[in-house]
């Protein structure tokens, strides 16, 4: 960074420029807005200069890619070596329909899979349980047993392609099904790669697909950490997620702070169990949103890497891999408009670009029609092509962290870090993450930010193209996805047949062994694997755990 003398010169010249030029001009030609603020309500200056990052030490604070504090990226070569994984979150209807979609996406150049489950599956119910009626396959694919998992991945090379699964409450059970399916096909669990979301804290905070209360949920998660590093070493046993916090209406700063805070809470619980940080921490991964404010998003990812590396070091991590904040990104579903849906392609392009300039390890780009329904084949293909254009045509992948050193980006990265630590302090004062959840702290912060954002749109303070500006009165003319209406019936028949044909004595034995393990302090993963291998359904397995652990009920705050 420049020396004091140079900084003073810059400062002086900037003051002159402001006084003699800028302010004079603004008097006659006022700026477009009284105040420029980003989505986190941080005021943005008209110009950034070396003076704004005068305290930054290049070696300590910025450094080199693949080296501490990893601000410029987690890998030494980044996209010059290998592009990010193109991973479209996808799932609807039956396992058969979704399997077809996965093959379609892989045929069009997708490089990783990402499973969206339907609501009954997310809550650990089978399709034929009362709470599940009407919800089959609506928001994702229904997986009620190992049988469905077999169909979902049939003829997909599970030894080569990695799979991310958005599953939380019943994550251990669904993961066990994935492992069992691979092993039945002759693929060792030591070879398979992928991610389970498994992040229950953000479920209480934002996404709300929780099953059990915090304590037993955390116990199950630490079980998966342990099983992962011992037996499934290429698996990311958690994806600590800000995505849903942001979708629920938080600001970028809140997304960053709450997510990293959750991450540190998992580290505390695993350490408390006696796991060694350098065993489990390398398999912790993250998931962030890519919203509309381009530079703010880029600064968010960069700040996240630096904060995580510093905090893990403070926890005593020695293995450099423990310090890496590796992350997946999805463009912001909540930024998509139902009005003039085609223009969402432009939004997604910018958001995807921000994720790449922020150094993401994998990316989902939303389809233009997602404010209306689950994506059609054509819409998802365009979304995938958008990533391919960023990767192969734009040139942004030719050098590492191309925005590093920008006065604005570095200043904003520092600012987001500073704001994050303020939230860490607030949460500490409330007694930690779980007490803060129980007090509704995060939920209220998010609801307030969401309402503020909506009011800004309703009063035209914030422009949303096609919604409150450049409106058109024309009917939406894009074909939406239609699902097979017979799917639910077929699935229920399949479940009935499965329950009749399996070795029920064995299934029941395994379920009662799981019950015993859950009632004691036992490590549950081996029992869960035995249950799913003997075709206990998801609902049956989760019902056993529900009986022992109880269910979480959240306070209804608005």
């Amino acid at each position, binding site marked *: 960074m420049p020396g004091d003398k140079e900084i003073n010169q810059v400062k002086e010249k900037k003051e002159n420029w402001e006084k003699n030029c800028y302010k004079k001009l603004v008097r006659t030609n006022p700026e477009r807005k009284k105040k420029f603020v980003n989505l986190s309500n941080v005021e943005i200056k008209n110009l950034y200069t070396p003076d704004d990052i005068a305290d930054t030490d290049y070696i300590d604070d910025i450094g080199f890619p693949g080296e501490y504090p990893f601000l410029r990226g987690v890998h030494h070569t980044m996209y010059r070596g290998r592009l990010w994984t193109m991973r479209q979150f996808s799932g609807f209807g039956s396992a058969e329909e979704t399997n077809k979609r996965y093959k379609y996406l892989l045929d069009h150049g997708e490089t990783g899979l990402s499973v969206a489950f339907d609501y009954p599956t*997310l809550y650990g119910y089978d399709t034929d349980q009362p*709470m599940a009626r*009407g919800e089959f396959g609506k928001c994702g694919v229904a997986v009620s047993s190992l049988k469905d998992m077999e169909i979902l991945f049939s003829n997909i090379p599970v030894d080569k392609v990695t799979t991310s699964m958005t599953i939380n409450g019943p994550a251990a059970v669904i993961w066990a099904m994935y492992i069992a399916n691979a092993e039945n096909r002759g693929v060792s669990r030591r070879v398979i790669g992928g991610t389970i979301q498994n992040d229950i804290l953000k479920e209480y905070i934002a996404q*709300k697909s929780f099953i059990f209360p915090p304590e037993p949920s955390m116990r199950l998660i630490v079980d998966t950490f342990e099983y992962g590093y011992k037996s499934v070493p290429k698996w990311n046993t958690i994806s600590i997620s800000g995505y849903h916090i942001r*979708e629920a209406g938080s600001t970028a700063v809140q997304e960053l702070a709450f997510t990293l805070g959750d991450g540190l809470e998992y580290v505390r619980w695993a350490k408390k169990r006696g796991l060694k940080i350098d065993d489990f921490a390398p398999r912790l991964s993250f998931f962030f949103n890519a919203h509309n404010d381009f530079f703010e998003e880029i600064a968010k990812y960069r700040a996240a890497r630096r904060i995580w590396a510093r905090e893990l070091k403070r926890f005593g991590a020695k293995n450099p891999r423990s310090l890496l904040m590796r992350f997946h990104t999805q463009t912001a579903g*909540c930024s*998509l*408009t139902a009005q003039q849906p085609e223009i969402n392609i432009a939004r997604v392009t910018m958001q995807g670009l921000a994720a790449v300039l922020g150094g993401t390890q994998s990316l989902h780009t939303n389809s233009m029609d997602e404010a209306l329904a689950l994506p059609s084949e054509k819409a998802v293909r365009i979304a995938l092509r958008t990533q391919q254009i960023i990767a192969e045509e734009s040139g942004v992948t030719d050098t590492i962290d191309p925005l590093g050193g920008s006065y604005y980006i570095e200043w904003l990265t520092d600012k987001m870090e500073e704001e994050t630590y303020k939230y860490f302090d607030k949460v500490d004062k409330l007694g930690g993450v779980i007490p803060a959840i129980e007090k509704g702290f995060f939920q209220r912060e998010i609801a307030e930010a969401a309402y503020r954002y*909506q009011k800004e749109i309703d009063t035209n303070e914030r422009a949303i193209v096609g919604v409150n500006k450049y409106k058109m009165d024309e009917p939406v003319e894009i074909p939406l996805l239609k699902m097979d209406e017979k799917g639910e019936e077929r699935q229920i028949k399949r479940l009935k047949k499965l329950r009749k044909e399996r070795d029920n004595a064995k299934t029941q034995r395994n379920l009662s062994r799981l019950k015993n393990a859950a009632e004691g302090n036992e490590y549950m993963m081996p029992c869960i694997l035995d249950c799913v291998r003997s075709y206990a359904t998801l609902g049956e397995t989760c019902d056993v755990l529900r009986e022992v652990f109880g269910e979480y009920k959240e306070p209804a705050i*608005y």
Partner: protein
Amino acid sequence: MEKKIRVLIAKPGLDGHDRGAKIVARALRDAGMEVIYTGLHQTAEMIVETAVQEDVDVIGLSLLSGAHMTLFKNVTKLLKEKGMGDVLVVGGGIIPEEDVPALKKAGVAGCFGPGTPCEDIVDFIKKKVKK
């Protein structure tokens, strides 16, 4: 003094997307209505029971999971059975245009999709519920 319009904002089924429901609840409150929010994971029976207990004029159902054809209709059907057909029912969330006529026929008076200004919902309710 004019009596306040009483609204129940409800989340039927398993859907956890509660951003819209909470925003609408706040907007209706700020527009001078009494708002009760059920929280998540409500069955039709729970929603109608709360509506009876709280003596509401309006029920706002919010759903983004795509299960509205089953879950909204369950609520309107039960309301009619309980002789509460005069309660105004409105819906919000991801509801394709082509589903709206069938929902109207089933008793959902208005559907408000993404991008709706809160004011439109306030006006709609105020026009339909004259106190």
